[in-house]
């Protein structure tokens, strides 16, 4: 049977490409890893964090994990909470990757990496969209469609030109907790001085409901967003796929990883392997839409097209600075709050909306104290006493830098006998000396700005390349149909029926998170496919 459209992946791009195609009346088969939440996720009670801590005798199951996988050890790195560990399940086996420096996260989960997304929904500036290779007008329309679908909490403020321009019909913004509200007030008093240094502060649009939206409920500020999706207030792409499964022209097949494709005169043959057992199965489609994420798509394309060599790769530079917010010393955070980013700072060095640095500010409570204590250079007993006193005053500033293509940032396919698929991606990722210098200068300026607001950095921890989980740029948009590039409509050069809906085509990666733009671009590409005949 030849399917009308096969969409690969249920993450942000696969889900929204599929939804647009289904709403356009097209028949869609979605092929997906579809790994579901572990059983421990069902143990998380519908309580706020403090109540769960005070009352639930079974909390160790989900806070620490059944195999204690929620107790990280070693160098600081992002780790998934036990109820979110399914996001990376099967990736080592089916998505092999070798690198000395690059820390990747890829997913075969139902909802992909979006199952653990931080919910920031940045609208890119027009210069950023041009640098990426996207048409600003088309993406602006698509932003509106996606915002309507998933619900956004936002309001205009100083940061709007850098992260939320043109959004309408949004819900009221998330409440700030005591610490962040104090920082915001300090910013308002020093706004002009900070602006002279190119710094502004405001709230990123968030895909968190503050009012009910369809079947999803408004947030109750339980501070449990890293542990559970109770009520569905934080948008996850599996919610879109759940809804699609009620449509008669949509079919969902889980448990498969797509390994390659082969285009013939009138269709695309899609090769898959079963996650459970590895059995091969082929599917046929008039049009194939890849929404497997930049690295996943690179793997599939490198296997499927002749010729190759290296592909470029983009990933944001990233640093975390735990800061001490002096005004919060001695005080506590309120019981009802959010764990998600609450306020952002932007540094626009050229004042041109390009090469903007984005800083998300988080307060610390619901990831448990011991993770902070183990980083303190004291005995754990003393570190516990110190962090119990200081944790309410800790603000985590995560600094995200833009990224540009460079010779030292490459991905290639290599043979690998140990891998289930017989090959692996190999990544070399070395930022240039200029990038390192510019990022360092930007970090110093940002932390100096925070210090003027009473928030003093205790440490500046550069994270390994790849740890933002933002990847792009392997098949850059190009007008000349060069091999291993994408046309502006998402078509893979050298093919007629293969389209890429994820971030593979982005020629530039802004410091702001790319997720909202990924969804909008997937919608744009799918909309183009709705208006196109399969044999066009």
């Amino acid at each position, binding site marked *: 049977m030849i399917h009308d459209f096969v969409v690969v992946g249920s993450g942000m791009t696969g889900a929204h490409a599929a939804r647009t195609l289904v709403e356009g009346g097209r028949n869609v088969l979605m092929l997906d890893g579809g790994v579901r939440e572990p059983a421990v996720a069902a143990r998380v009670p519908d309580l706020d964090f*403090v109540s769960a*801590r*005070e*009352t*639930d*005798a079974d*909390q*160790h199951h989900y*806070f*620490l994990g059944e*195999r*204690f996988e*929620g*107790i990280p*050890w*070693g*160098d600081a790195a992002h780790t998934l909470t036990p109820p979110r560990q399914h996001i990376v399940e099967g990736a080592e086996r089916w998505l092999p990757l070798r690198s000395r420096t690059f820390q990747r996260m890829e997913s075969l989960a139902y909802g992909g990496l979006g199952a653990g997304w931080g919910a920031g929904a940045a609208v890119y500036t027009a210069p950023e969209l041009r640098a990426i290779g996207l048409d600003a007008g088309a993406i602006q329309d698509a932003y509106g469609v996606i915002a309507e679908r998933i619900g956004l909490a936002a309001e205009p403020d100083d940061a709007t030109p850098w992260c939320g321009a043109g959004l309408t019909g949004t819900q009221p913004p998330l409440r700030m907790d005591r610490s962040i509200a104090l920082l915001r007030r300090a910013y308002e008093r020093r706004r002009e001085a900070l602006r002279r240094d190119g710094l502004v502060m405001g709230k990123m649009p968030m895909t968190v409901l503050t009012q009910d939206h369809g079947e999803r409920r408004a947030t109750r500020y339980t501070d449990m967003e890293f542990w559970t999706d109770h009520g569905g207030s934080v948008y996850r792409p599996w919610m879109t796929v759940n809804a699609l499964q009620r449509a008669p022209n949509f079919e969902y097949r889980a448990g498969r990883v797509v390994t390659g494709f082969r285009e013939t005169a009138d269709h695309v043959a899609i090769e898959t392997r079963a996650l459970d057992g590895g059995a091969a199965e082929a599917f046929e489609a008039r049009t194939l839409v890849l929404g497997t994420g930049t690295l996943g798509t690179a793997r599939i394309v490198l296997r499927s097209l002749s010729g190759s060599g290296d592909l470029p790769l983009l990933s944001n530079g990233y640093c975390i600075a735990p800061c001490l917010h002096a005004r919060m*010393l*001695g*005080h*506590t*955070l309120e019981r009802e709050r959010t764990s998600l980013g609450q306020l952002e700072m932007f540094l626009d060095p050229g004042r041109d909306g390009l090469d903007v640095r984005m800083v998300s500010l988080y307060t610390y*409570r619901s990831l*448990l*104290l*011991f993770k902070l*204590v*183990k980083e*303190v*250079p*004291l*005995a*754990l*007993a*003393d*570190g*516990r*006493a*110190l962090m*119990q*006193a200081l*944790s*309410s005053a800790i603000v985590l500033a995560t600094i995200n830098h833009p990224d540009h293509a460079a010779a030292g940032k490459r991905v290639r396919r290599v043979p690998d006998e140990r891998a289930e698929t017989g090959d692996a991606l190999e990544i070399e990722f070395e930022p240039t000396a200029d990038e390192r210098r510019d990022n360092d200068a930007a970090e110093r300026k940002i932390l100096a700005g925070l210090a003027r607001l009473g928030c003093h950095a205790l440490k500046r921890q550069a994270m390994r390349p790849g740890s933002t989980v933002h990847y792009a740029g392997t098949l850059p948009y190009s007008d000349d149909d060069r091999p291993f590039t994408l046309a502006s409509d998402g078509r893979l050069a050298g093919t007629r029926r293969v389209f890429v809906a994820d971030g593979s085509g982005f020629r530039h990666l802004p410091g702001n998170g790319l997720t909202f733009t990924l969804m909008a671009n997937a919608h744009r590409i799918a909309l183009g496919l709705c208006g196109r005949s399969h044999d066009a």
Partner: protein
Amino acid sequence: MTLDAPDDRTAVALARHLIGEPPTAAEIARWRDAIAARGAALERERDRRLWRLIVAAPALAGPVDAGLALTDPHSPVRHRLCLLLAVLEASPVHTRRFLPREIGALGWLALGARMVRAGFRSALGVVLVRGAAARWP
């Protein structure tokens, strides 16, 4: 007691060192499971010696831990203590030892005094750990 499965007495002494309260029987069992599951094995002679030292004299757990925090923060000895701390934190019995609390002037004074003592602990700990490392590398 074996090195891989600490006994109840060790668990009680170390929990008192970490948070000033004893663990429940379930928490002790959970800590043993965590040590086994997370592979906090004492493979180096120095680590085995340091572990035996704090088991025999829990009062030295603080200095040893502090010394390791400065010289070898990812040591398996410290890993075991961190596993116990995590197990204690994820229990409603000890929640008040971990959740943030309002602190007044007296509280800051007490914390200041504790940090002074922590400084002495660290100094003693570095000597202990470096001495052990020199003797049993």
